[in-house]
């Protein structure tokens, strides 16, 4: 087997041409010149062949799975609650526990703005009020980054740092948004109560009607045998008289 490290021609000095040729990025003249060189240089021929083998090997590592990155922009609280209410079926609105839980989740979602999570199906990055945080950081940043070099001036966030940032953003926005959220929730609850009351009244009326109809049916059914009984009773009251007459006859 070949030993590798010493196999290329160190003094050949055509590494760049060899690489350009290998990846088919050599211009016409460069290509022709290198092909001519290849005919004379066994070391370069050997190296070219070996590199082609390396490339084939590299091709064996394929990435089978790309995790989806979900980017969502939460709506403002008011809008989100409006959409929630509009989209909910009547029965859901009535069960205020569920609706309130969903609304609270939405409020938290809107407050948090940016959320990171790694799930079974991949990870998700959710952006919301990150823009406001971005503005804040840009104004406080002592050294503004030059164009196209964001990561040099603004250190990359580690996961922990990102989570801390998010927690801070939540804390900052919480005080501001608390009153709004409470008002929204109160309004939501009032509307839910109104809706629940209206639907309860409607349901009660409906039940009452059904009940009344049922009672009427029962009464009718009860009345029918009474009539029969009455009729039978009437017949019986006549028949025994006849029977007795027949018997007596």
């Amino acid at each position, binding site marked *: *087997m*070949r030993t*590798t*490290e010493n196999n290329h021609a160190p003094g050949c000095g055509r*590494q*760049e041409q*060899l*690489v*350009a040729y290998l*990846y088919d*990025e050599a211009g016409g003249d460069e290509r022709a010149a290198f092909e001519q060189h290849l005919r004379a240089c066994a070391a370069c021929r050997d*190296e070219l062949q*070996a*590199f082609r*083998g*390396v*490339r084939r*090997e*590299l*091709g*064996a*590592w*394929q*990435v089978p*799975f*790309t*995790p*989806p*990155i*979900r*980017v969502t*922009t939460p*709506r*403002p609280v008011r*809008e989100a609650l409006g959409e929630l209410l509009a989209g909910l079926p009547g029965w859901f609105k009535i069960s205020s526990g569920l609706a309130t839980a969903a609304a609270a989740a939405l409020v938290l979602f809107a407050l948090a703005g940016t959320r*990171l999570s*790694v799930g079974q199906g*991949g*990870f998700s*990055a959710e*952006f*919301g009020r*990150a*823009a*406001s*945080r*971005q503005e804040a*950081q840009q104004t406080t940043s002592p050294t503004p*980054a*030059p*164009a*196209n070099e*964001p*990561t*040099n001036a*603004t250190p*990359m*966030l*580690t*996961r922990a740092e990102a989570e801390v940032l998010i927690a801070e953003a939540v804390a900052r926005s919480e005080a501001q948004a608390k009153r709004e959220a409470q008002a929204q929730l109160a309004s939501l609850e009032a509307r839910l109560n109104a809706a629940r009351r209206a639907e309860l009244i409607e349901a009660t009326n409906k039940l009452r009607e059904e009940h009344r109809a049922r009672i009427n049916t029962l009464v009718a059914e009860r009345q029918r045998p009474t009539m029969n009984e009455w009729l039978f009773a009437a017949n019986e009251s006549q028949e025994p008289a006849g029977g007795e007459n027949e018997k007596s006859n």
Partner: protein
Amino acid sequence: MLESLSHPVPEAEFDVSDDQLIARTLAGESDAFSLLVRRWERPIYGLSLRMLGRDEDARDACQEAFIAAFRNLGKFRGEAKFSSWIYRIALNACHARLRDRRGAALSIDEEDEAGRKAELADTASEGLAERMSRDERSEIVRRALQALPPEMRQVIVMKEYEEMTFAEISEVLQIPVSTVKSRLYTGLQQMRARLEKLRGAI
């Protein structure tokens, strides 16, 4: 402050350029950014995975890269291509992670290699070199690549897997094309040596 779209960005808008999506994101259409992410998540994840060698690390780096891109989108002035910019951000995220684990990683890699050698020797005793599965070959490549210095590795990854031109790699790394070529050459040489060493263990 971002404003919400009254209607979502249609999925079919793939003829829209990256620059247009950036402009729309900056104008408040944050849904445009999600289209940008969908467009680039696959290559950025692939790059991160091959740089870091581990799925979980790659996910984290990829996530960090897109968050950093979103946060710094206002500083992107379109002088370079968005692809170069996001690749550079992702590579920075990868390098930061590599620096964090540098000390431990060296010893782990050496142990890994010893274990791999033993496995390969077992495989050889069964005469299975020819029938080595794709998974095993893939694992060898992964380990050989991980053992390369990151400067070489990133060039190989961008060239081989992302199929970028020398000029594009040069733009991402902001180094001369000749340096790209020489790093690629050295990287391939080292890969050749490592792969032959691993095959020699069979």
